[in-house]
């Protein structure tokens, strides 16, 4: 079995707001193996982005604070590193692609300049070497006449092209881990298909591990090997992708799959929504965060918060109920 490349244990992140403390991430643990693609699924506010930002030390503090947890990357705890130390890892060994390519590129610098920066900083290339490598990277992600486009500014690129630039930038130092935070959510489906095709190709060529954050179960089904489902600041289910879709064990996962219409479904069936709304995390949940929306909920669900436990090989779930029998585990 390959070693864990990234090992997150008991991560907790909170935000101080004028209305009180928001408990965004409440004890998240997961591992990432070398070359593996992990999908992280959840709705807005479930803590999926905050988890990754915390790991990379990108939480603005104040108002945010990582209050507990460890994040080991090849034996070093990223959370204990100084700003200077983590800067050598971020962008070089672990890099990130953000959701909105317009706000994450600097509008007043040329794309070439932005691509060269990490190469000069992390790899120690000279200006000319970096320029050459930047052009290579742009053509790697499928941007035509790459050399000329280095002098263009971000606004001269379309949305899909900008996201390609972001990916090129993230790949520039050949990272071991690529964290992608909803990189295709803002794009049209045909462009999304282009980007996903590109990422799959690059993954096979470069052999990097990927954490792909999304709310789209369809994207996860096509890309990930393992999936973690998040709700209310917790991972509530984790399984291999085939197992998750075939035997979802958490009522939330089941609800999420049931509420989706499918392009390949034959007859119009009625959608089964999850009633209610996602929780607002002004309190650290003491009971199961999904209990108010759960059709299976029993008394225990309102009193104790279940922790993630193994139900079958490689399949973990945080639920008091075995949904197959409807009885307590």
């Amino acid at each position, binding site marked *: 079995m390959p070693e864990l490349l990234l090992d997150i244990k008991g991560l907790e992140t909170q935000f101080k707001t004028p209305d009180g403390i928001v408990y965004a991430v409440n004890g998240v643990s997961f591992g990432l193996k070398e070359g593996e693609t992990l999908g992280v699924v959840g709705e807005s506010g479930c803590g999926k982005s905050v988890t990754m930002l915390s790991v990379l030390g990108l939480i603005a503090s104040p108002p945010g604070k990582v209050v507990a947890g460890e994040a080991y990357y090849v034996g070093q705890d990223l959370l204990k590193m100084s700003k200077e130390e983590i800067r050598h890892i971020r962008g070089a060994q672990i890099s990130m692609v953000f959701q909105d390519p317009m706000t994450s590129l600097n509008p007043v610098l040329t794309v070439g300049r932005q691509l060269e920066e990490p190469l000069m900083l992390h790899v120690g290339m000279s200006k000319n070497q970096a320029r050459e490598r930047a052009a290579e990277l742009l053509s790697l992600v499928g941007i035509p006449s790459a050399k000329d486009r280095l002098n263009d500014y971000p606004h001269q690129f379309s949305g899909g092209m900008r996201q390609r630039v972001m990916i090129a930038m993230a790949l520039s130092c050949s990272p071991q881990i690529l964290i992608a935070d909803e990189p295709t959510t803002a794009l049209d489906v*045909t462009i999304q*298909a282009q980007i*996903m095709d590109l990422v799959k190709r690059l993954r096979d060529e470069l052999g990097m591990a990927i954490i792909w954050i999304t709310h789209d179960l369809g994207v996860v089904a*096509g890309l990930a090997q393992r999936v973690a489902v998040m709700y209310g600041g917790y991972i509530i289910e984790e399984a291999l992708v085939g197992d998750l879709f075939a035997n979802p064990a958490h009522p939330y996962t089941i609800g999420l799959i049931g*509420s989706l*219409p499918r*392009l390949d479904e034959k007859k119009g069936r009625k959608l089964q929504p*999850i009633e209610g709304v996602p929780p607002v995390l002004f309190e650290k949940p003491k009971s199961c965060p999904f209990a108010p929306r759960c059709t299976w909920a029993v008394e225990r669900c309102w009193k104790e918060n279940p922790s993630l436990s193994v139900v079958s090989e490689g399949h973990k779930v945080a639920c008091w109920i075995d949904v197959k029998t409807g009885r307590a585990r």
Partner: protein
Amino acid sequence: MSSENDILLKIDGLKMHFPIFRGIIRRQVGAVHAVDGVSFDVRRGETLGLVGESGCGKSTTGRSILQLYKPTAGTVMFEGANLISLKTEEMRLMRRKMQMIFQDPYASLNPRMTVGEIVGEPLVVHNIARGREVDERVAHLLEIVKLNPSFSSRYPHEFSGGQRQRIGVARALALQPSFIVCDEPISALDVSIQAQVVNLLEELQEQFNLTYLFIAHDLSMVRHISNRIAVMYLGVIVELADRDALYDTPLHPYSQALLSAVPIPDPFAESKHKRVILQGDVPSPVNPPSGCRFRTRCPIAEKACAESRPEFRELKPGHFVACHFSERFA
């Protein structure tokens, strides 16, 4: 085929060009060809899905039908009247019968008005009710969209996205319209909430015999809710057909690529799924390509595609397509 009576709305050659002005004397230097000649019928009681990628003109089409923009050319026949030639006052009366649900439930509700004022405003503006009667109707409308009537004194910021969209639906229903343009009503909502709103829209359609023009970019949701579907690309409709016909045998290369690009939430189906990956981006609607709009990205484009604009023709009964070579897919 349907008789003339079944047709609620007949759109013919609708164009909406937005002028571009430059220089100090603001001379017109060009136009954005947002909608460039679309024709279709909407049948009474049906849901017509209008899909396409961002910037293809689907929202502009919806808005031009409701005369929220003044269309550049074309006719929109609704109950025997051409909406485009109606006078302001006549149009105001007509608007009672046609309403809109907007995409962004955070931007489409006035934050300084209470829910009661928002939902009741159409009644007051159109002189249909006043005073206590408005309150009663508002309470009833909120019940219809499954919100607690006691919420009417609260403000929009107190509600979640899904609840706000319900408020928008209640406002659209206030004047008892027969036709509603739903402009991406669910795309700003979380996945688990989307299904709630879609189910509500379906129930209301049955209850009040509503006709929907459902604009969306989520093809799986459009398939779920629509009877017929029109696919738009760069200002024109490239294909229009019954739901199952379109999804089973798409006849336009763009529809084929669009459908194949949608990820399926099933790893097994996904691994066997063959995808058509389009090259490049959508061209600018300021200078659309000559001939067929899609030819710059089309996998089967030939010389003829640049020379003549393909006719929007009925290749099979009820299945319209605008492509020179659709016969090979039929």
